[in-house]
């Protein structure tokens, strides 16, 4: 081992290290990378980090932290060492995700029409129909092409044995894809030579693919469908991503007040009058879309939008009500869903999951709280969860009360020791950090995945939570042809 990696401790007995095999040698696909980084001094690393920081600052790549006055904007932490996935591993992830998303889409199409899966008693009806995100009003409304989940970002982790497992499906408005694109740009600037040595599959066509997907679901026959991106506005934490994607696709970035509905058709208000809209890539939650149908106090939405959608005059991506399928309780049934609709065995496994709504499971959960990770069924972004091994007795007791009060709302999973990847902490010290992977699946006429995704990394020493709102960062992610 050479210089930078000399002092790196992979702890092979406790963790799966992405870069180093248990014998301490780099895994084959990381060989050239370790060699290259071995040639750098600490000063080289600092210089390159500076290049990257300037790139991010100039691009305005920041996210907003809630609860701080005037919305503090921070640069999204970025780690210089890329995560590398060899093509044979990627092929399996890709196949597994496409299988999973196809099945979940079938599931949504079924739930919002004949509900065959409930009649066949594969899933308990009360769990599906009682889900917070099930939209009874939309049963019987078929979206264009029968597709509900046009943009998804399932979170994939690796356990101590290095198996890829799906941790959760994000079927509503997953964010982070702009970081995937920008990380690649940043790393190209910092390590041009390294790119030479690997055949890294490009991802830069993502915005074009996204636009193509959105145009494919246009419900009208107009030759150039007008696509807009609907954002909650500048105070939203993902606003940068919204404006970035709109610019990259060349579509209008709209807020609710930029849109009007007249005669069940949606228009943008422009300086040249009203212009018809065919497809809305909305980054606004269901609840805020239309004050006439959902929350009447919401100013983010467009009055009348849902009627226009019902009439088939405008397409929404993603469709309304997809949250029922990424409910963490429904998650535990996804293997069954795959078998039921596709007649196949799941390629990617789930993480073991106990449902608090099941009395036997509930007993197990309450007895083993200190070993488990407990999550609220409908929350995201790392909010509303208990990490057993890191909690205090008092926290566990308080959480137990919440679980007993509303068992339908909680699930538990074993504390998985996520795989680790060498990363630089703030002080440029190299250490093993836990990572996950969020590939983005686009689904218009058929599902496709841009090779790679966003690798999120828990840059706080020892932390397991990779969400950006909880101090996580990200890495560039390479799928390489060997």
């Amino acid at each position: 081992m050479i210089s930078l990696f000399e002092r790196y401790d992979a702890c092979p007995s406790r963790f799966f290290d992405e870069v180093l095999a248990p014998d301490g040698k780099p895994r084959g696909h990381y060989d050239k990378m370790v060699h290259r980084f071995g040639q750098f001094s600490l000063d080289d690393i600092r210089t390159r980090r500076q290049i990257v920081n300037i790139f991010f600052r100039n691009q305005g790549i920041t996210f907003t932290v809630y609860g701080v006055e005037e919305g503090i904007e921070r640069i999204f932490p970025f780690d210089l060492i890329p995560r590398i996935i060899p093509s044979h591993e990627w092929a399996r992830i890709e196949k597994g995700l496409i299988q999973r998303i196809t099945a979940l889409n079938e599931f949504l199409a079924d739930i919002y029409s004949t509900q065959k899966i409930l009649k066949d008693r594969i899933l308990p009806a009360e769990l599906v129909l009682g889900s917070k995100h099930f939209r009874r009003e939309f049963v019987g409304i078929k979206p264009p092409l029968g597709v509900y989940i046009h943009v998804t970002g399932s979170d994939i982790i690796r356990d101590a044995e290095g198996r890829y497992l799906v941790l959760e499906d994000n079927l509503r408005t997953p964010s982070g894809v702009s970081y995937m694109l920008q990380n690649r740009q940043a790393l190209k600037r910092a390590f041009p030579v390294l790119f030479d040595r690997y055949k890294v599959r490009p991802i830069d066509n993502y915005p074009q693919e996204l636009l193509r997907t959105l145009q494919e679901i246009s419900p009208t026959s107009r030759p150039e469908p007008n696509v807009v991106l609907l954002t909650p506005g500048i105070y939203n934490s993902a606003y940068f991503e919204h404006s970035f994607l709109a610019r990259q696709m060349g579509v209008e970035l709209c807020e609710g007040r930029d849109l009007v509905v007249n005669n069940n058709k949606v228009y943008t208000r422009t300086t040249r009058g009203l212009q018809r809209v065919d497809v809305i890539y909305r980054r606004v939650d269901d609840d805020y879309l239309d004050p006439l149908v959902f929350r009447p106090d919401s100013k983010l939405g467009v009055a009348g939008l849902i009627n226009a959608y019902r009439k088939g005059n405008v397409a929404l991506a993603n469709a309304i009500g997809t949250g029922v399928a990424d409910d963490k309780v429904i998650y535990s049934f996804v293997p069954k869903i795959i078998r039921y609709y596709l007649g196949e065995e799941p390629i990617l496994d789930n993480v073991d999951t106990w449902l608090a709504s099941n009395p036997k499971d509930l007993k197990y959960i309450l007895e083993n709280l200190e070993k488990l990770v407990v999550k609220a069924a409908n929350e995201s972004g790392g909010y509303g969860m208990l990490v057993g091994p890191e909690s205090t007795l008092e926290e566990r007791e308080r959480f137990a009360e919440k679980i007993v009060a509303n068992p339908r709302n909680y699930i538990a999973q074993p504390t998985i020791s996520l795989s680790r990847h060498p990363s630089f902490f703030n002080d440029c010290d190299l250490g093993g950090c836990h990572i996950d992977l969020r590939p983005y699946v686009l689904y218009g006429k058929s599902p496709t995945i841009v090779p790679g995704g966003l690798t999120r990394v828990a840059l706080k020493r020892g932390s397991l939570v990779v969400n950006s709102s909880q101090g996580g960062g990200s890495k560039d992610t390479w799928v390489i042809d060997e």
Partner: protein
Amino acid sequence: MLSRVAESLFWMSRYVERAENTARFLEVNFNLLLDLNDITEIDHPNYWSPLIRVTGDPANFTERYTEYNAHTVTDYLVFNRQNSNSINSSIGLARENARSIIDSISSEMWEQVNNLYHFLQSVTPQQVHNDPFSFYREIKNASHLFQGITDNIFSRTEEWDFIQIGKYLERADNTARLIDVKYHMLMPKEGQELDLVHDSFDTIQWMAVLKSCSALEAFRKVYLSKIDPENILWFLVLDRTFPRSIAFSVCAAQEALWRISGSSRHRYANNADRLIGKMEAELSYTSVEDMYRKGLHLYLEEIEVGLNRIGEQIHLLYFAYHTPKIEPHDIAEALPFTGLAGGRANWSQSQQQQQ
């Protein structure tokens, strides 16, 4: 272009220009005071109350301060966020507007507005008091830099035209107010008609007005050293070559409006074009004698009201696009445009955006 984007461009530009001019208002006053015979009079309310009268709302001021002097007026016009026209408020609003359309402007423009905002946050009243000229120069330069950046790297599209309209309507309005400061300075002599006897102190005051418009040198090129009020008035109101004169600004705003609507001389496409065409023609054929006959203050006030009406028409035409079912009075209620009611046009995107 989205109406909201057009509106934010317009107001971003307008508020930057307003901040610059507020700095000029204060600067002209300091310029005047330095020429006073008796320097102890520097805090005399007569020298400070006119600034409040022409830039904003005296009632709003007297609610917060007990007297007019250098400290209170500077605080109100520079720092006070309760005063929506203070330099601090203007730059804050310019930044809010720029932030909401950050994807439509160049990043250099955003950085400049943002830098100016952060510079203002770092300045203390004591610093301004110790060295007012450096501070006002800093504000003016920052505004010029913003406009220079825009000039050099922003495409000449409809977006550009809305930036120009905002800038020039605001500038025309502000130059009118700036001349009005001078008129109010002469107020103690009231009882008579506006005194046009050219005593030396008067000349010095007019020179200060020119200086604050950065117009002294440009003026000298035209009139050599003949500084008399008629020439100065002609220069600041009617001159077609000096870019801070009212006529120049109105003309520039008109051209931008024409590019958007396709109007041309004698053929107007909408009410905004009609009103600005009328004002432009009026400025083309007015003489200084006409202004005196009407009374200078009244003449300037009419220009200010006219500019407000143009702003209101632009708002209705391009920003407040409405479906046919909605009546105009609904829009007036739904969109708190304070074009005439508040004396100065004020509008902030952020007022609608708080969630």
